[in-house]
């Protein structure tokens, strides 16, 4: 990957779009409510055909009027999440990168400052992710970091639990984070080789990246002091009944094969805990407001500390 000089305080927020304009225009403008922090937005459009490019051009003018630089990159076709995110990261100038899906909206106004502070507090921490909550009130937890069982099954920690469940109000190391919203130190991201294009177009590329980062001795942390809204599973298209099934199987098998030597020896969740439960997550039209919070959420500490 290309390594380049970067602004020390600048954060590059890299977002992908591939159609789903109704979510993009609900979520991206919310980011303009971010509390003062030097940041830029890099949007990579993966061949959208629903008017997204034209909307992004208009949003760029709005954002830049609000003091946020926007870089737009257009791929003629869907280049895949890994390729597009790597391209967006290379186009950004920040020493810190945030990968943010177009179905994530602002909840904690100080999100960039708080996630950045967690990275700055310990050089061993290479990536940090917030508490993701459902947009539909009462905003239950969508993902509080990811656990991987000893057989390679995936657990979205806290999924469906009340937002203030004490167990998920603790800042702690996690095995993985989802790429819906994650801040990564650029040097660690580049050292790991970025997202692996073997996982294009999508599925498991984020877990693979987390393992490559951790396999180099870095830590990955879940920080519940920051909350962001996440509309679940709208970033990528799939069949209505079983979205992305073929990709989940192919990439899931690759992930298990590649990282078994690590997760088989970690204290991940039990297999039975990982059972995916169907949830009614709320349609976009049902979400009438997305309240923003200004103060940092209370964060507990792990027992024994």
């Amino acid at each position, binding site marked *: 990957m290309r390594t380049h000089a970067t602004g020390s305080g600048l954060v590059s927020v890299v977002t992908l779009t591939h159609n789903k304009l109704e979510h993009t225009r609900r979520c991206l403008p919310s980011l303009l409510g971010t509390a003062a922090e030097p940041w830029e937005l890099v949007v990579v459009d993966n061949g959208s055909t629903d008017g997204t490019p034209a909307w992004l051009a208009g949003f760029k003018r709005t954002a830049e009027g609000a003091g946020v630089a926007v870089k737009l990159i257009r791929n003629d076709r869907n280049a895949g999440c890994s390729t597009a995110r790597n391209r967006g990261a290379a186009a950004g100038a920040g020493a810190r990168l945030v990968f943010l899906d177009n179905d994530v909206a602002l909840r904690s106004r100080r999100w960039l400052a708080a996630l950045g502070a967690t990275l700055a507090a310990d050089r061993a921490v290479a990536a940090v992710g917030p508490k993701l909550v459902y947009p539909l009130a009462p905003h239950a937890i969508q993902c509080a970091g990811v656990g991987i069982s000893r*057989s390679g*099954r*995936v657990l979205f920690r806290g999924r469906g639990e009340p937002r203030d469940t004490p167990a998920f109000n603790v800042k702690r190391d996690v095995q993985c984070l989802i790429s819906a919203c994650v801040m990564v130190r650029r040097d660690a991201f580049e050292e790991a080789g970025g997202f692996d294009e073997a996982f294009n177009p999508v599925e498991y590329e984020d877990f693979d990246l987390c393992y490559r980062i951790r396999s180099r001795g870095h830590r990955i942390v879940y920080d519940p002091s920051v909350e962001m809204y996440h509309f679940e599973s709208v970033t990528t298209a799939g*069949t209505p*009944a*079983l*979205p*992305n*099934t*073929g990709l*989940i*199987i*192919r990439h*899931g*098998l690759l992930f*298990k094969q590649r990282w078994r030597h690590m997760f088989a020896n970690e204290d991940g969740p039990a*297999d*039975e805990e990982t*059972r*995916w439960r*169907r949830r009614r997550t709320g349609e976009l039209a049902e979400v009438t407001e997305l309240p923003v919070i200004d103060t940092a959420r209370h964060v507990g500490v792990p027992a024994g500390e």
Partner: protein
Amino acid sequence: MAEERIEDRLKRLIVRRLFLKIAPEAIGEHVSLIDGYGVDSVSLLELVVGLEEEFGMSIPDEEFSLKHFETVSALAAFVRVRLAAG
């Protein structure tokens, strides 16, 4: 002793892999695994892993189709074809 039917082995595999709270024999062979037993994309991955372990078979990308996983009956037919193909 008669060899266990593939359908019965599949039922046990499904209950075990998906942590279903039912007896294997309660699974209907012609009932939709998606609608009847909550099979989703992630649990299909675990079924594929289970097929590899239980039957020593692998499924090439070009052979994968959701239609093979619609019911126990369909899956059993698929397993027989794959086993015969070696």
